[in-house]
């Protein structure tokens, strides 16, 4: 190569603030930041004076690709936004398309989606808390949590066929019903979860090192959090119970009994605790849902979106044509636009869908919480210590897949 590579990023800093400061690049590929993100920081010794956060290293043209595939074919792509809680992405997207089509999902599907959304939230929070603890050296707690998470991944694989990117949602329903014994195994896992989460609480909650590293670090006020667009656990950690599951209930959340845990001052310790408490609430909700789960079909009986039964496809011409049209042309979604938001583990996950009629979207836009959170991340990092960047960034829980799309 003759010419040197151009720098893909231009820092906003035009020179240094003072002569004795130093500007360093943290990332985009750094062992202590999970997620491909670049933080350009100006340091005065160990103190961070200002930061410039860059994302986009994982950009793979999701929204452009969406405009070239049928509504159904997007579901695997949607999985790969927040790949830690793929099911919530699936259901939020399907919900948006169903709104456009005017489809009412069946009761069993509604409860199952709620149950699996909470399961996904549990997995996502486990990952976030485990990674955050590991970065501070709490290897035992990390292994406890990731072990439980792996039971859950295996369990979800038994239902969906894949550990991480499940592709389980369908427009108007779900890919398949629960296999036999699935709920029994779920109860076993939840019991184990409670055992191990108690051990993690005992290990770290009152641990001096843990508190010193997290208390009063990465503080953000409610007004600032709203100004910078924060939603989800970060906004709740500042003390306001803002949760879409309560505020604008969707799926079956209106029928469930649950609390919205909030923090006190919006620091890293509060964010840890809000996530831990939310997991308990998720388990509480899942137990209610296991009792409420009705029998019945999981897919709506609507030929515009639901695939006909395979035996019918092979035996009668109408179903064969129906199947063919759904695969080749896609579900027929009436012209219109919808914004559908679900409470994802990181905050408000919104899908803005525009249809001009037909089987392919005209536009799909994702309001990804991680991306918005990166826009305000400098508010939490500036003024802190260099070493605090790692736990603060960890507590924001930026997921590259949905941030960069």
């Amino acid at each position, binding site marked *: *190569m003759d010419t040197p590579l151009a720098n893909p990023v231009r820092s906003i800093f035009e020179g240094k603030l003072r002569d004795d400061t130093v500007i360093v690049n943290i990332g985009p590929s750094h062992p202590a930041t999970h997620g491909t993100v670049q933080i350009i920081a100006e340091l005065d010794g160990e103190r961070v004076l200002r930061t410039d956060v860059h994302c986009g290293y994982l950009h793979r043209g999701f929204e452009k690709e969406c405009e070239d595939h049928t509504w159904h074919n997007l579901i695997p792509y949607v999985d790969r936004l927040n790949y830690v809680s793929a099911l919530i992405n699936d259901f939020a997207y399907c919900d948006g398309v169903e709104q456009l089509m005017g489809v009412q999902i069946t009761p069993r599907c509604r409860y199952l989606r709620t149950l699996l959304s909470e399961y996904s939230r549990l997995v996502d929070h486990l990952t976030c808390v485990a990674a955050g603890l590991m970065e501070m050296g709490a290897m035992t707690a990390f292994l406890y949590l990731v072990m439980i998470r792996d039971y859950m991944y295996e369990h979800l694989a038994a239902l969906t066929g894949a550990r991480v990117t499940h592709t389980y949602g369908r427009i108007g329903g779900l890919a398949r019903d629960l296999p036999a014994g699935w709920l029994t195994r779920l109860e076993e896992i939840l019991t184990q979860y409670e055992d191990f989460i108690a051990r993690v609480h005992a290990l770290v909650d009152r641990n001096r090192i843990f508190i010193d590293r997290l208390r009063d670090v990465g503080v953000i006020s409610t007004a600032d959090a709203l*100004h910078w667009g924060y939603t989800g656990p970060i906004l709740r950690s500042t003390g306001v119970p803002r949760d879409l599951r309560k505020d604008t209930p969707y799926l079956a959340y209106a029928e469930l009994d649950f609390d919205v845990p909030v923090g006190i001052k919006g620091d890293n310790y509060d964010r840890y605790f809000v996530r831990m408490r939310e997991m308990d609430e998720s388990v509480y909700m899942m137990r209610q849902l296991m009792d409420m789960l009705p029998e019945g079909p999981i897919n709506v009986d609507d030929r515009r979106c639901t695939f006909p039964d395979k035996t019918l496809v092979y035996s009668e011409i109408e179903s064969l044509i129906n199947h063919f049209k759904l695969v080749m042309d896609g579900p027929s979604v009436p012209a219109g636009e919808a914004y559908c938001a679900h409470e994802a583990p990181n905050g408000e996950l919104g899908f803005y869908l525009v249809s001009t009629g037909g089987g392919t979207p005209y536009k799909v836009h994702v309001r990804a919480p991680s991306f918005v959170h990166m826009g305000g991340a400098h508010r939490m990092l500036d003024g802190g210590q260099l070493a605090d960047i790692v736990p603060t960034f960890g507590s924001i829980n930026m997921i590259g897949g949905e941030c960069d799309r």
Partner: protein
Amino acid sequence: MATADFDTLRQRLVPAAGPASLSHGMLVFALAPAELMPTVQRLKGEFAFDLFLDVTAVDWLGQTPRFEVVHHFYSTVHKVRVRLKTRVSEADPSVDSLVPLYGSAAFMERECHDMYGIVFRGNADLRPILLYEGFVGHPLRKDYPKQQEQPLVPYRT
């Protein structure tokens, strides 16, 4: 969302922000570019739309004006969302930046600028965010071919 609250809010909002339509449970206002900033100021100041959710654009290639800039807002007080749609022309694809009102607008406007080339007047930092320095064109415009490649690192031959 309580229906009564929503209707009350709607009756108060419509005179303030102009004619609205209702789309899948959300109030939608179609604005001229000059009305955007005053409308958002009123939404934030009088109606407590304190959370700026999202800005994106839709490229209606072949129509005039070509682009539609779409803003979403949420009120954590009323628990209601609104959508503002602003049509801008291909020759002058610019609207006012909302950075003076919402900090979160800075990043999202950068993305919209990347993808559609919409210029946000008043946003001093429109550097590429998802794309890289030196990227030519705006990939989400309908006339940008999906297969077009601009490798930053030359392919090995």
